[in-house]
């Protein structure tokens, strides 16, 4: 049975995980220490695992015969529904940590809510993933504290990283007609209701890190409608290259 709003919602969830997983993979072999390299690669793997399940489920709901690989490798940037936060470039290590901290703190709350979804398969994916996301959120929060309460240099870089990423935070909690319908059916989580818990969690970590509160910034949005920053195309090009050049290649 085809359900376009449900399909769209699952794309939003799956694309967030896929794009961030691909971004983090760029650190592989380049991170400051071996332990961090392993950590970021592990987080990337978890996210790509989530994406595989979420996009696979999206394809089933759509009912057009598209599987997770088809959705990942054969869609253009305009058809991606991820938030703008996850497609932002890695920058320096502090900027990557800022992005991870904000996203994982949000995703932990979202997936916790989705464990109670009336879509039992989505609830199962969320229950499986939320335990792993807790590790991601703890890893990122630990580094926010370490960098923020570290040297003058690390502190300034952490502040700069958060100042760049903060403009993409509001989009995480925005809802629209697609989601309102699904919230009413008990399938989706009401994003707006997650904001107070997110703000409390972020504030607690920033205080521990002796960092100032997140600065106010005019929100930049559009990802859920396919209006992306220029960075997404540059991320998709190497990711999709093989399947685009040699469609349906297998090995």
């Amino acid at each position, binding site marked *: 049975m085809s359900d376009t709003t449900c399909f769209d919602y699952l794309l939003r969830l799956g694309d967030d995980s896929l794009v961030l997983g691909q971004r983090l993979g760029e650190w592989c072999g380049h991170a400051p220490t071996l*332990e961090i390299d*392993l*950590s970021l*690669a*592990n*987080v*990337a*793997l*978890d*996210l*790509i*695992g*989530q994406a*595989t*399940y979420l996009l696979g489920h999206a394809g089933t709901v759509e009912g057009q015969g598209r599987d997770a690989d088809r959705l990942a490798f054969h869609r253009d940037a305009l058809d991606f529904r991820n938030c703008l936060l996850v497609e932002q470039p890695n920058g320096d290590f502090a900027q990557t940590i800022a992005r991870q901290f904000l996203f994982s703190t949000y995703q932990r709350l979202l997936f916790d809510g989705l464990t109670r979804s009336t879509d*039992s*398969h989505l*609830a*199962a*994916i969320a*229950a*499986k*993933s939320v*335990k*792993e996301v807790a*590790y991601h959120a*703890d*890893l990122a929060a630990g580094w926010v504290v370490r960098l923020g309460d570290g040297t003058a240099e690390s502190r300034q870089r952490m502040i700069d990283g958060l100042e760049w990423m903060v403009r993409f935070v509001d989009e995480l909690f925005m809802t629209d007609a697609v989601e309102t319908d699904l919230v009413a059916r008990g399938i989706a989580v009401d994003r707006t209701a997650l904001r107070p818990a997110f703000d409390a969690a972020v504030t607690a970590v920033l205080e521990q890190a002796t960092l100032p509160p997140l600065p106010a910034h005019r929100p930049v949005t559009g990802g859920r409608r396919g209006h992306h920053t220029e960075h997404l195309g540059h991320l998709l090009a190497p990711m999709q290259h093989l399947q685009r050049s040699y469609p349906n290649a297998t090995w």
Partner: protein
Amino acid sequence: MTTPVDPGQVMDVLATVPDPEIPVVSIVDLGIVRGVDAGRGSVLLTPTYTGCPATLAIEMAVRSTLAAHGLGHLAVETVLSPPWTTDWISDAGREKLRAYGIAPPPKGSAATNLRGQPMPTPCPRCGSTRTVEVSRFGSTPCKALWRCEDCLEPFDRFKCH
């Protein structure tokens, strides 16, 4: 026309399939085999971690092992719910992990004592409990990197989940 399925026999066959990353334990020891649905003629597998790169290798190993024992007609299904936890690892599996040099997870996925503090992790080599976590993310998604303060050896610890 269906062939009757003996779940016990199928489980015995699956107990010979090693985990591809930690070959001293079988996929039954690790709790990856959730069971056999005799009615549907299916073997039910559950992934340990969503991003575990071994998931596909495990499924392929299960298919070829079943086929080699004349059980190739069985389907292999992935189930996510209830999610796998380290509590699914058998006692025999825990001992095999320890002997292999990987600190097994304590029973109880929260892995804390009654006061809510983390349980000590004994070094799998010398047994000392003076151990520290080096990195929560290790060489595979299921392991964290630890170090023993007495014998000074680094070791893997199965993540509690």
